[in-house]
């Protein structure tokens, strides 16, 4: 699926955060968005996901304008900069969340025992696979509150990857990991993105990472606005 962002503007509390930003991500490719802190990278991802409504501009997937689609109907997964793990669910339920909520209600209610058993095995396998990927095998039952910073980050990544989304938004997914782990995960992630042909927008501050994972690097530039932002 190709993602096309066309002259997006965002204003929050009267401050312009994004000023006519455009972005093109061809099907299956990865574009890295880089830029100084506070320039609006996370905001851009939120706009694409549909969490923030832009003041103007449009977003389309495969040429279809999705601007008016609600968040959950855009087939987009996202890793949030600050993880946003669900505090009331353990690690495995966090990871399986995307699978659980998109499972058709009918299926849960009327399917046969066998079908249900199969589904639950599939789900479990997927969780195990994801945990293996991020190097957290055995963490299934852990409370998210007890995870270390890097562990939480990896669970967030696993959660976004689990439903195998066709568009993936990654907001600094590998930040705060040690070099070795970072590099291993980067390679694995690159492999997965390529294999599944996922259309990806990656926000990162790591130039090497951007170069390795992305087909193209886009610089997001600060828009000219009131240099002293003020709260309302």
């Amino acid at each position: 699926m190709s993602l096309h962002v066309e002259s997006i503007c965002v204003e929050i509390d009267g401050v312009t955060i994004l000023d006519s930003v455009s972005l093109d991500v061809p099907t299956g490719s990865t574009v890295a968005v880089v830029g100084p802190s506070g320039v609006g990278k996370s905001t851009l991802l939120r706009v694409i996901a549909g969490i923030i409504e832009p003041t103007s501009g449009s977003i389309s997937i495969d040429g279809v304008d999705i601007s008016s689609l609600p968040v959950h109907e855009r087939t987009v997964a996202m890793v949030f900069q600050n993880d946003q793990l669900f505090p009331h669910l353990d690690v495995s339920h966090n990871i399986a969340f995307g699978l659980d909520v998109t499972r058709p209600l009918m299926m849960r209610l009327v399917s046969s025992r066998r079908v249900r058993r199969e589904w639950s095995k599939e789900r479990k396998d997927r969780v195990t696979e994801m945990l293996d990927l991020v190097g957290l095998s055995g963490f299934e039952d852990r409370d998210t509150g007890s995870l270390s910073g890097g562990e939480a980050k990896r669970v967030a990544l696993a959660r976004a990857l689990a439903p195998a989304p066709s568009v993936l938004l990654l907001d600094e997914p590998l930040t705060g990991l040690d070099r070795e782990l970072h590099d291993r995960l980067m390679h694995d992630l690159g492999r997965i993105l390529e294999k599944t042909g996922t259309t990806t927008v990656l926000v990162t501050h790591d130039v090497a990472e951007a170069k390795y994972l992305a087909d193209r690097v886009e610089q997001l530039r600060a828009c000219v606005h009131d240099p002293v932002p003020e709260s309302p």
Partner: protein
Amino acid sequence: MTVSIAHRSRHGHGRTRSRLWSLPALVVITFTVLIPVCVLAFEVVEPGALRSALTRSSVVDAIRFSVWQALCSTVATLFIGTVMAWILARYEFRGRRFAAVIVTVPFVLPTVVVASAFLALLPAAIERSFTSILLAHVFFNISVVIRLVTPLWSVVDPDLMAAARTLGASPMQIVTRLLLPVARPAVTVAGSLVFVMTFTSYGIVRILGGPGLNTVEVEIYRRAVLFGDVSGAAALAIAQTLAVISVIAFITRRPTRELHRLGAQRRPAPRWALGTVSFVVVLVLAPLVAMSLRSMYVDGRVTTSGWSNLVGSPSPLMSNIDMPSVIIRSAGFALIAAAIAVPIGIAAAIGLAQRSGPLVRAILNIPVATSAVVVGFGILITYDTTPFDIRSAWWLIPMIHAVVALPFVVRTALPVVQSIPQGLRDAAAVLGATPLRRWWTIDAPLLHPAFATGLGLSMALSLGEFGATSFLTRRDSQTLPIVIDQLLGRAGETAFTTAMAASTGLMLLTALIVVTFDSSLRT
């Protein structure tokens, strides 16, 4: 259009949608309280009634006394209540749940009963004085504070406190600079509810106050019932409601901050906490124990007649009181009331959390601030024409119970709703959860404590409600508090021990219900 971070992801429908959330609660309050009171005002209140009421010295004295005692009671209750809330939220100790249940019980017992038990315990020096009113008000209302503040404090990230401590904040400063400000919305709401409850206090002031100490509420009752001056009473009641409502609408504007609840494990309780809890529990327990003892002891002699009367061996005293069905009816009303109050109350809290006009907030507070007599009169003259003659419909009583409980449900739920980080809902949405699924998978589990508290509280309130229940006309629908009142109206030792036994039964039933339904007390 402008998207504000605080309201993001609501796709611009925030306004209309939040109205929809609050709508059921507003409708119920409008029909059961607002319209009747307005009708009363138009049909009964004569011009100048308020002015002439306000020029009476007894009314002026009552206003002065109401304000003064309510302020003192509120400060005292807030102090003890927040300390207790803190201990219950953050520390683990044996008997934590017991303590949490015990402090809830007084709030829902009929005032007549506990006030008499209180009277028996108080040293003669402070019997029937300002101090005794103060003590009783703390005793009755402490659970409001505990119930409102505890849920919030149990979701404060311990690391936030750690951060403050590494910056040099002493334990006292942690409280004054972090915990109280973070819980401020809940604390102010609790404070304003306690203020209203004590300002409009009726039974306690009448029994414990002694001569010369009257609240406006007592004055309203006197005018309405004793002097037959419904006009003056209604004028006074409406003025009181408006005044009280606008005061609270002002204090309770601030939203709660988003809080994260990262494994807020309870720590073992230190000594001071155990000491405080024991002290408060003993204080609360004493009148309750006195009451239960009174159901079994007469002049130091054990008797079972009170209890055997209850359990139903036929006796002249209980000839027309079918105890099992009274209990079943009370419990049934409590269930219905909770079934109405909890869903619409939580919905209203969600609406308020999104955006709250002062008007909506004020309306949601009206049931606490309006005297039961006046609402009763209003209903009486409003719904008096067929096919809307519901004056003696059986469901009117659980309905009114629900309305009485509604503000408490809304108020316990609101801070919890507000403390759920919006980011979690966004994350769920991005993973494909529909709004309904989002509600079900994120909000509902995180709101669980609010649901549980609301359920326990509204059932308990319904069980203990006396004023409105007694005033409305009932066919075959005595509830426990009414039976207790009937028993207390008779001479003879057995009548009294039976009343005390019934009160003890009510207390146990309340505790049972709170324990069963309020699972927030469990973990």
